[in-house]
C-alpha cells in the first residue's frame, strides 16, 4: 500500500467533511435568522396628521416614539429609546427635555445628550405622508434632528 496515497485520501476526506460542516453551520445560521417578524413592524402608519396636538410631543407607547408637531415647522418623530442601554425615556414638559430612568441620561429637545452616560443623541425617524393622507414612520430610516415634514 502506498503510504502517501493512504494519507492523502483521508486528509482530503477530512477536508471535505470540514467544508460540509462549515456550510451546514452557515445554513443553520440562516435557518435561525428570522425571515418573518411577528413583533411591531419597523414601518407603520400612525394616523391622521390632525390627530396630533401642537406643543408637547405625543408619546406612542407601543411604537416607542415621540411625535412632535409645530405650527411653523411641521412634524418630526423622535425615538424614545435611550441610546445608552435601551430604556424608554420620558419627556418632561416643565424642563422641555428627555430623562432616562435607568442611568440618568438627559437629552435636549433636539435629542442631544445634556448629561449622563448616553453615547449618542436620540434617533430621529423619517416621517412621510401616504397616498391616503396618513403619517407613516419608518424606523429603518434615521434623519437629522432638523428634518421636518410639512403638512
Amino acid at each position, binding site marked *: 500500500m502506498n503510504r502517501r496515497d493512504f494519507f492523502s485520501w483521508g486528509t482530503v476526506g477530512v477536508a471535505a*467533511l470540514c467544508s460540509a460542516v462549515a456550510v451546514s453551520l452557515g*445554513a*443553520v445560521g440562516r*435557518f*435561525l435568522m428570522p*425571515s*418573518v417578524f411577528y413583533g411591531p413592524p419597523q414601518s407603520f402608519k400612525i394616523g391622521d396628521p390632525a390627530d396630533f396636538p401642537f406643543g408637547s410631543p405625543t408619546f406612542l407607547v407601543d411604537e416607542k416614539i415621540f411625535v412632535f408637531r409645530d405650527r411653523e415647522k411641521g412634524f418630526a418623530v423622535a425615538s424614545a429609546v435611550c441610546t445608552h442601554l435601551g430604556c424608554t425615556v420620558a419627556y418632561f414638559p416643565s424642563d422641555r427635555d428627555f430623562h432616562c430612568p435607568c442611568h440618568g441620561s438627559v437629552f435636549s429637545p433636539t435629542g442631544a445628550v445634556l448629561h449622563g452616560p448616553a453615547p449618542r443623541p436620540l434617533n430621529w425617524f423619517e416621517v412621510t405622508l401616504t397616498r391616503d393622507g396618513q403619517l407613516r414612520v419608518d424606523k429603518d430610516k434615521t434623519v437629522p434632528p432638523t428634518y421636518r415634514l410639512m403638512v
Partner: protein
Amino acid sequence: MKLIREIWQSIVRRDPLSTDKGKSELVFLNVWLHIHPAKVKKENLRFKHSFYLGFITFFLFIILVTTGIALMCYYRPYPPQAYQDMKDLQFAVFMGPFLRNMHRWAAHGMVVCVFLHMCRVFYTGSYKKPRQFNWVVGVLLLLLTLGLSFTGYLLPWDQLAYWAITVGTNIGSYAPLIGGQLRELLLGGHSVGEAALLRFYVLHVAVLPSLVILLTIVHFWRVRKDGGLSRPVWKLKPQKQEALVTIGAPAEAVPLHVAAASTDKTYGLMEVVTGKPIFETITPEEEEDTVFSYPYAFVREAVVLMGTVTTIMMMSLFMNAPLEEMANPAVTPNPAKAPWYFLGLQELVSHSALLGGVVAPALMVLALLAIPYFDRNPSRRPGDRKWVLWVFTLFVVANIALIIVGTFFRGPGWAWVPPWVHVVARPE
C-alpha cells in the same frame, strides 16, 4: 511557527501519528475517543459482523439532537401556535422543511435501527455472560427511543398527531387498575389537549433525551468494560469456550477457567485493579489479529457516519414530513392510527383490549429484559442454540407482520382493506 506547534502540541499532547505510541495516545488521551480500545480485533471491524447498527443508531441520535435543538427555536408548545409554527417552518423559515424532514426521518430511522441492532445482538448471542446487563440497558434504550418518537409525534399538533396520540395513549389505559390514572398523568387531563402537548414537549426535549444520554454512556462504557464487541460467531471454536471467564467474584465452589494473567492484554486502568479481568481475553496468538483503532476503526466509523448523514439528507431532500390539517378533537379521521411502530399493538388491541393492549406488550418487554438471565446456555454458536433462535425469529416476524397488517391492510373502521384496494370512507 514554533509557537503554533507548541499550541498544537498543548492541545493534542501526543506523539506523531506515524508512531505506534502516537496512535495509542490518540485514543486514550482523547476524551471523545478513549471509549475505544487503542487496538481492536480485525474481525470485529468486519461490516457483516455488526453492520455497525449501534453506531448508526448513535449517529441518528446525534442528528436528532442537533436538528431538534434548531427546531426548538421555532416551536411553541401550545395549541394552536404549535401548528402555526409548523406552517412557518414549512413556508417561511429558511431550510425549515429540510431540517424538519431530517428530524422526522432520523427519528423513524432510529426506531428501525435500534430494533435491528437488538436483533443483531440476539442472533450473535452477544447478550450472554458477561454482557447480560448491557442487554438490559439496551432494551431500556429501545423503550426510551419509542418514547421519544411517540412524544415527538404529538408536537406538530395536526390531525395525524392528535389522533395517533389519542389512540396510542388509550392503548395504555387498558392496563388494569392504574391504566386510567397513568393516562391522566401523561396527558394532564382526560383527553389530549394543551396540557398534554406541554407534557409531551417536556418529555421530548428534556426528560427522555437526558435519560437516553445517561443510558447511552452506560451502554458504551459497558461495551468496553465487558470486553469490547463480542467476537463474530464464526470465529468461535468449541475449545475457546473454556477460556471464557465468568463475571466478577464467582461462588467459591466454582473454579475459574482463566487464562494466565500475564497473557491478558488490556489497555487501561483495569490492570491495576486487583482481581481478574472479567471479559473475553486475548491470547498471544490472537494479538496478531489486532490492529490500531487509528485509523482502521475510525475510518470505518467515519464512513458509517457519513453514510448515515447522507442517507438522511437525501431522504429529506426528496420526501416531506407529513403535516395534515390542524388537530380537531371534533373530527376523527377514519381510520385513526397510532404511530406505525405501535400499529402492531393497535392490531392486537382490535382483537382483545386487555390481552393485546396490556398482557402481550408487558410480556414482550419482560421477556426481552429477562432473556439474558433465562437463556443459560453459554454457547454463542448458532448450532448450539437453534431453539432459541427460532423463538426469537418468530417474535420478530410476528411483530413485523402485525405492523405491516396494521399499517397497510387496515382501512376505515379498522376493516381489512388491502393496500391495492381504494376505499373512500362513508360520508356523514
